[in-house]
């Protein structure tokens, strides 16, 4: 376009003269059917690939283990052997002869207790170590050594201390899951931007208000990273610990099945352990997403 350049001394043309008429366009709303179709397509894209992979793996497993004399049962046999366990998870014949639901719920109760304790203690210690240089200098080397001790190595010691299986298992969960919670919380506290501390100083928040209104929300993304690692570790630890302490629980169920050569039941139990572990991880991740809304964005 050949627009003549406006000289600076010239009067600026009145805006009304150049204003173009505005044409209003109403955006077309996509029909409802199309929206549904898109939703179905999006779900399919996510669901179909894992289903295909699972089907293929099951097929390979079936083919490999079908031969006579194979050490492990094929999926068809696993299903046949464990049909009763799958269909009725709620039976209770006394002792440890219970449905899988009861075994899982006993394990989950132990995890819930041990993990809650470690979350509370872990966040408290993490705040202390993150906030105080002296606490960090004193405690950090200790944490770094203790956190490398494998969960089961704590079990004999805790059995000696508590003289009972139940508190020992809970202690093992506690001691296993606390380290990532402490370390991540401390990093989160140390990384609180100076700006937020300045704001708190100008507003004159007292230490308690600073803790609740600045520290915890600011460190929440880090804290939840620690909590998520922690829940995974505690689920790892409970199965191993239960194998040794006995009683009701998914870990001992597996051990019991091995002792009675019910390989199919072991496979079923592993399947459940995996699913529950996955759900636990998702629950903590989801909780973290709700709690840290906003924080993670900036």
């Amino acid at each position, binding site marked *: 376009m050949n627009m003549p350049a406006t000289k600076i001394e010239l009067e600026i043309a009145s805006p009304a003269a150049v204003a173009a008429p505005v044409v209003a366009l109403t955006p077309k709303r996509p029909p409802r059917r199309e929206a549904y179709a898109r939703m179905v397509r999006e779900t399919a894209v996510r669901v179909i690939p894992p289903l295909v992979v699972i089907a293929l793996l099951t097929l390979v497993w079936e083919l490999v283990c079908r031969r006579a004399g194979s050490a492990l049962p094929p999926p068809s046999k696993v299903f046949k052997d464990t049909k009763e366990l799958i269909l009725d998870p709620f039976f209770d014949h006394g002792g440890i002869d219970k449905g899988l639901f009861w075994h899982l719920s006993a394990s989950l109760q132990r995890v819930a207790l041990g993990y809650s304790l470690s979350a509370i203690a872990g966040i408290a210690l993490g705040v202390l170590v993150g906030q105080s240089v002296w606490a960090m200098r004193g405690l950090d080397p200790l944490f770094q050594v203790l956190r490398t001790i494998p969960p089961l190595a704590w079990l004999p010691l805790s059995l000696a201390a508590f003289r009972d299986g139940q508190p020992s298992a809970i202690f093992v969960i506690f001691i296993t899951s606390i380290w990532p919670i402490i370390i991540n919380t401390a990093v989160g506290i140390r990384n609180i931007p100076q700006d937020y501390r300045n704001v708190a100083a*100008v507003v004159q928040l007292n230490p308690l208000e600073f803790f609740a209104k600045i520290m915890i929300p600011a460190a929440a993304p880090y804290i939840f990273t620690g909590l998520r690692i922690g829940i995974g570790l505690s689920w790892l630890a409970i199965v191993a610990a239960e194998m040794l302490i006995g009683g009701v629980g998914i870990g001992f169920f597996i051990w019991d099945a091995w002792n009675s050569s019910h390989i199919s039941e072991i496979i079923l139990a592993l399947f459940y352990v995996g699913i529950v572990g996955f759900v636990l991880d998702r629950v903590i991740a989801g909780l973290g997403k709700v709690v840290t809304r906003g924080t993670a964005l900036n």
Partner: protein
Amino acid sequence: MTAYLKLDHIDKVFTRGAATTEVLKEINLTIEKGEYVSIIGHSGCGKSTLLNIIAGLTNATTGGVLLENREVNSPGPDRAVVFQNHSLLPWLTVYENVRLGVDKVFARTKSRAERDAWVMHNLNLVQMAHAKDKRPSEISGGMKQRVGIARALAMEPKVLLLDEPFGALDALTRAHLQDSVMALHQKLGNTILMITHDVDEAVLLSDRIVMMTNGPSARIGEVLEVPLVRPRKRLELATNTTYLKCRQRVLEFLYERHRFVEAA
């Protein structure tokens, strides 16, 4: 001249190990009530350190700050700060960010309903009431800075400290916000101390401009009165001789007599 805020022989020395750096030397300044004072200087001259000392976020090595003849050396809402990068808490809404300070400052003197009304009043002053339930991540940079100003104003500070408040904004938003701050100053009569590195901004907004020499050991090099009547209009001032003279004076100070030398 009645001293409302008085900076009395402030020196600031940073010590790191055996090395000491003198950042500020012999800073003396008195500011009257209702005055708008800008501090201008090249980056690294310690003007932000000076603001932090006044805010109480850093302590002076020697000398002190007197507000209404009383020494202040810890941070407080009577010297509210508008930070350069807004520093809104991202997990709180706009309303909650302002409310945080209001709840602390007026905990005893205002009822719950009064505090709510006061927060809304201050959001209205900066034209941000419409976004009260938004989170900082959902509003623009200029809007964030408006909320930052509302948060500071809502604490009813004796001195409002602005730390390069428009530095991170684009030129058009900056001009708009400068006009807002001018209007607020006109309306509320606050005492304002602003750090800036923008010559036009300093001349347009201030009653006095404090020019600082380059660090280390930065001093106050010159103080310039800006005798322009208020309210000031950006467009009219573009040709105003007083404005242009003041601008010239500051430019000469910054680019001739105390030219910025890259740290050797």
